[in-house]
């Protein structure tokens, strides 16, 4: 059985979501900027 008895703190959650969220948001904004050419 596992011995991971330390609970998750809000810092863990922010770090985990930031780790995946920041690159994803950067990619989405990049794509959105290119997509705007459709309306120019």
């Amino acid at each position: 059985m596992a011995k991971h008895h330390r609970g998750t703190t809000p810092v863990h959650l922010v770090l985990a979501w930031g780790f995946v969220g920041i690159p994803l948001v950067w990619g989405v904004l990049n794509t959105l900027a290119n997509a705007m050419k459709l309306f120019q």
Partner: protein
Amino acid sequence: MALLSFLDRQHSVAGPGFSRWMVPPAALCVHLCIGQAYAFSVFNLPMTKLIGITQSAPEDWKLTELGWIFSIAIFFLGASAAVFGRWVEEGGPRRAMFTSALCFGGGFLVAAAGTALHQLWIVYLGYGVLGGIGLGIGYISPVSTLIRWFPDRPGMATGMAIMGFGGGAFIASPLSVWLMARFTTPTHIGVAETFVTMGLIYLCFMMVGSAIVRVPAPGWRPAGYVAPAQPKRLVTRNNVYVYQALKTPQFWCIWWVLCLNVTAGIGVLGQASAMSQEMFPGRITPVAAAGLVGLMSLFNMGGRFFWASLSDVIGRKNTYFVFFMLGTVLYALVPTTGAIGSVPLFVLCFLVILSMYGGGFATVPAYLRDMFGTRYVGAIHGLLITAWSVAGILGPVLVNYMREYNLAHGVAKTDAYNFTMYVMAGLLVIGFFCNLFVRAVHERHHMRQEAADALGMAE
């Protein structure tokens, strides 16, 4: 081997106080990386000039030869998801994510060696075979874990991960272009160095996912969650063994549901740029068409989260009914948008269609869980991925060949896609009926309690 024991399922059981909201980022660590596959085409043109540098030399690789890299990878994605599904399910998500990271990151490194040595077969072997196996194992690795952590919202949970697969290309495409620009000199094109850098980045990123993922302890339930006393008719509390699922009509109905939904979407996704320019000559320029493709990709990604989350509310079967009914209307409407010259209506049709294409991928794991239970849902999902492989061939072939046929028979370019759109609408009508035939799985297919206990699956 004791060194690798931390990868075992029993070593990744969550302790008290672990938040289930740590699991979606773990899944996204893998899916955002393997979603790079959709952006592989950015390497195609530079790889045709590795020797000639400014233009292709006779001994340089041809685009047609390079196209096989992606095709081989997608083939091995489907094959490995089907073959390794049970291994992934029984070994747990950490071992699967770890293996996927080694295969996918390693595939880049082998492909880099092939590029540096200018041996295309090594690139096929690296990115195509090894990377493709990493894609397949990585794609299914977090599915059942997310479903167990979110019994109250399984659609939303798997939708989040599968949204990452759609979003991976948004990161990979600009990153690849930026890295290649950094490594390219007047006498050298920096594809191999870019492969090495990306392979190492993806390896580390996926390893983080493997490290933070946890499976819930047996019997765990979210705080305040009470399973419905009266189970829904189409949501089972039993489990079906992975290979037994193949013997049920439900598996094959859902296989066709996914295949037809993807066939219709993938056909227009690949041809949207050319189609929009030919249907609206002079009004949609190549630059605007590229913008449309980007916007469609965003809707493809967003639809994965939106529709899968909605399916938790309205049910999986009803969600696919929406895809098939609304999709049929929208496909049938596309020729009219061309006839009346309405670009906004054309764009709107395609954006909604693409959101439902992504939604079809993201909702299917929860559909399988409803039908076959939680225990082998990841492995059954792996088998179902073969529907994607078939659709990946069917969709583009249908669109391309029907366009060629129409042009050869004197149909104007602006109208060349009309018949194709009606055929796609017809495919969705067939999909509607396949979905209609989905009923609860007969109890003779359910795993017996002794077999379940023997497999240590106290659900």
